[in-house]
């Protein structure tokens, strides 16, 4: 869909999209372009829209060059590189008016697919590559690298930066560096000779990326697991969480091998299914290791019974849910925030769970460490609700920092001496009156032994079917959960806090929400913004909700799950919460939010307290 015309000054502020066929090596070419812009000191955002397939289906890569450092999609599109014949008609339509489209002109395209309001640029990429490279596979791969060269010429991307990146990527394989650089140069030279370079949309060196990295959330979370001291990881492969365990394993292979013996200070167990994966995590955590499992929605569904056991028997566990599009198998390679409710109340019976919502890879790292500390301290499962957008896309983030003074908070675990001082050990007795009992580990002392069970138990750890004994434990669990609200990460609030309208978001919608707030301000609509980072909701969340007459809850699911959770778990009046919902599978853009807010409030309309927009 065409959007507004490009603003006059598009220097370091535009969006490119690359339409490819998956399995052709396009992802590396696109990452090369994005990284080059990043290395030129210009903030970038990259999103990979890929199919649940190995080879042959359409895939897109979106690069937003954003001098202001925004991290979300803007909703517009200035330059399309249309390399996929199959999606060409759709790709042509998507370019914003005044934009550009590059296509492979080796073969003619139907004139029916041209547009008057955009500039169409033909480059005979296949022809160039066929003339200069040998072998079918190589020619296909190099075609992508070749358009990277064309983009360098059209957008003013520095070739030296490309050369340096290729040298880093192919470190010891000079032949690959040379052939890739040759393809870049061919594209670059063709563009310089035949096209008007550069385009009005172009880049120019800045210094806004120093001290930053480009990293995906799953890698950052995997690294977080290393730094949290996790030693057991159990999992069943599922998109889009797989790369989290891959990252953990990769880091461990480098950092966790005992120098003297060559043996591993970790175990990664690939389970037969998610039921087994969570069972392993509970077994390991119960036995005193820090353990975790990465999964996605379908895995959470399978894990439910065990999650209830962990809640009731008070066993720590860290569960990463890298959310994807549901319901059912849904669209495995598209993003959504559709598991908020199923995680918050996972399992049958009365259960409520601690959720953490990282908004970017940086938080994936830090909140992972927090998740392990909270799980140990509270003796309960803690969910880290990331999503495909955060987990699998490279985001520009401030460099991660580490405090060497950090030590894991292992919570209330009694050592041998402490156990032996006791008259008798009672697993579920609230000795400290803080709703958290003490636990013991196997192998320490026979006096610390107890029987862990998901069946009815009393505060002494014994089996019970006695109503009162059962309720004592269940009520304490409720109080423990409520107390967790003061222990989880606080919400982040922007704005003075006294504006009439508030925006509320979680997780990866943060970038779009922040940008929307700025755009709205420019249009004269001043709003406050709160990003919730955890459940149970703290007093700060209650206060923000209470202080705003109209609140837009922005989330990426159909059924307004965060809004539901807020109405269930806070005192807010339901009527004050409007929804801005986006659940297409592509990450939300700031445009969607601006449109949603303006539709309610714009053009002189006052906030209404009766209309609920779902």
């Amino acid at each position, binding site marked *: 869909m065409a959007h507004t015309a490009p603003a006059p000054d598009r220097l370091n502020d535009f969006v490119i999209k690359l339409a490819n066929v998956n399995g052709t090596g396009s992802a590396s070419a696109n990452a090369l372009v994005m990284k080059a812009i990043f290395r030129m000191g210009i903030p970038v955002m990259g999103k990979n829209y890929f199919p649940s397939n190995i080879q042959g289906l359409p895939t897109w890569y979106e690069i937003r060059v954003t001098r202001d450092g925004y991290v979300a999609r803007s909703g517009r599109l200035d330059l399309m590189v249309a390399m996929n014949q199959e999606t060409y008609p759709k790709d042509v339509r998507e370019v914003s008016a005044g934009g550009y489209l590059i296509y492979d002109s080796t073969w003619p395209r139907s004139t029916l697919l041209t547009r008057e309001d955009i500039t169409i640029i033909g480059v005979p990429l296949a022809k160039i590559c066929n003339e200069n490279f040998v072998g079918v596979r190589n020619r296909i791969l190099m075609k992508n690298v070749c358009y990277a060269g064309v983009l360098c010429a059209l957008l003013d991307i520095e070739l030296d930066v490309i050369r340096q990146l290729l040298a880093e990527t192919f470190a010891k394989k000079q032949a690959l560096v040379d052939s890739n650089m040759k393809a870049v140069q061919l594209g670059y030279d063709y563009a310089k000779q035949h096209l008007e370079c550069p385009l009005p949309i172009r880049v120019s060196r800045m210094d806004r990326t120093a001290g930053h990295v480009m990293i995906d959330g799953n890698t950052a979370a995997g690294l977080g697991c290393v*730094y949290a001291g996790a030693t057991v990881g159990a999992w069943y492969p599922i998109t889009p969480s797989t790369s989290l365990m891959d990252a953990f394993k990769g880091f461990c292979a480098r950092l966790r091998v005992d120098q003297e013996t060559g043996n591993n200070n970790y175990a990664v167990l690939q389970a037969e299914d998610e039921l087994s994966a969570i069972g392993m995590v509970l*077994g390991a955590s119960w036995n005193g290791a820090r353990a975790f499992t990465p999964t996605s929605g379908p895995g959470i569904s399978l894990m439910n019974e065990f999650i209830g056991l962990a809640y009731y028997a008070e066993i720590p566990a860290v569960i990463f849910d890298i959310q994807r599009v549901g319901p059912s198998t849904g669209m495995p390679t598209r993003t959504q925030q559709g598991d908020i409710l199923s995680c918050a109340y996972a399992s049958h019976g009365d259960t409520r769970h601690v959720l953490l919502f990282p908004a970017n890879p940086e938080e994936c790292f830090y909140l992972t460490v927090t998740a392990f500390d909270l799980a140990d301290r509270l003796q309960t499962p803690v969910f880290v609700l990331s999503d495909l957008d955060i987990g699998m896309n490279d985001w520009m983030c401030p460099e991660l920092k580490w405090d060497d003074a950090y030590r894991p908070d292992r919570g209330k675990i009694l050592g041998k001496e402490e156990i032996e001082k006791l008259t008798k050990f009672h697993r579920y007795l609230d000795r400290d009156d803080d709703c958290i009992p003490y636990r013991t580990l196997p192998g320490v002392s026979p006096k610390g032994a107890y029987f862990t069970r998901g069946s009815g138990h009393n505060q002494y750890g014994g089996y019970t079917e006695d109503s009162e004994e059962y309720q004592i434990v269940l009520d304490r669990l409720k109080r423990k959960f409520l107390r967790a609200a003061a222990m989880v990460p606080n919400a982040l609030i922007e704005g003075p806090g006294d504006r009439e309208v508030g925006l509320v978001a979680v997780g990866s919608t943060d970038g779009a929400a922040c940008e929307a707030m700025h755009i709205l301000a420019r249009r004269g609509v001043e709003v406050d913004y709160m990003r919730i980072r955890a459940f149970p909701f703290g007093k700060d969340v209650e206060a923000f909700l209470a202080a705003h007459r109209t609140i837009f809850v922005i989330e990426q699911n159909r059924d307004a799950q965060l809004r539901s959770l807020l109405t269930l778990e806070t005192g807010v009046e339901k009527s004050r919460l409007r929804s801005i919902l986006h659940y297409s599978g592509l990450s939300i853009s700031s445009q969607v939010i601006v449109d949603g807010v303006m539709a309610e409030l714009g053009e002189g309309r006052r906030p209404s307290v009766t209309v609920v927009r779902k």
Partner: protein
Amino acid sequence: MSFINKPKVRHPDLPRNELGLTRRDYEGGMSTLCAGCGHDTVTASIIEAIWDLGIRPEQLVKLSGIGCSSKTTAYFASGAHGFNGVHGRMPSVATGANAANKNLYYIGVSGDGDSLSIGFGQFAHAIRRNVNMLYICENNGVYGLTKGQFSASADIGSKTKKGEENLQAPVDPVLAALSLGGSFIARSFSGDRAQLIPLIKAGLMHKGFALIDVISPCVTFNDHEGSTKSYAYTREHYEPAVNADYIPPQREIYVDYAEGEVAPVEMHDGSRLLLRKLAPDYDPTHRGKAFNYLRDRLREGEHVTGLIYISHNRPEMHEMNATVDVPLNAVPYEKLQPGAAGLEKILKRYA
């Protein structure tokens, strides 16, 4: 069923093991199973075995799922941690627990419903992983707690108490384990403690996954005429092929045996198993022959018992993962991450 607590009084002359502990020190809570339940005999056999092996109670970890059999982990070794998980998923909990601390003894007690129906996947994969644990399947062919439905191990033609006949093929845990690469596979009968106790000892000392399928009749729902898992039927169709005596390290072999009948097998810790072949042509170190022998006898309706198969050549889970000797729950935090300086180095790749 009994609700009385066990008296704590102990006779001063009770025999003591090398740790100075009596059998009473290895007991647990009072059983709530039906009087005459085969499972209680298995529990008693476990107590005898761990007492005689001199395992410290706290060095033992007891795991189970859901069902009558899974209740029994509460009835022995009250000085050991127990984990009664969800139905059919004990193997994964055991796997995780074992991953966290390789230095303890793990004993899982399950049943035919828990292992062969709802938990068949986990059972199979724990065998494949060769998790270092003893896994006892108390097999009675019936669901007891839900009052008498067939389980997956019910034989074709076996009848319920109400006369309903089972028409589906049974799952035989021993044949399954043989085909899945099990490294220690045994079958026994709760009515034969002389055979069972040494098998429990050997299974606990075996490095890897040790399965003992114990036919353990359900006196309430599956001990009638027409059942193939009753006491009477089992006694009649019970064919010990190889009995195993467990000899701890440094202990003299003093049993009497006729030449050619006994083969000693060395265990990883220096202990030995004396295999007494009751079927002369049986070879418990040959997977294929063992499989064929069992299948042939099964056709005749015979339960072959004893140490069916043993192999010391398969790496257990920690060996496959090449984990350090220190239990993973005890590796010092300093060894687990490279600190701020290391992080800076790692991030260079992402700049």
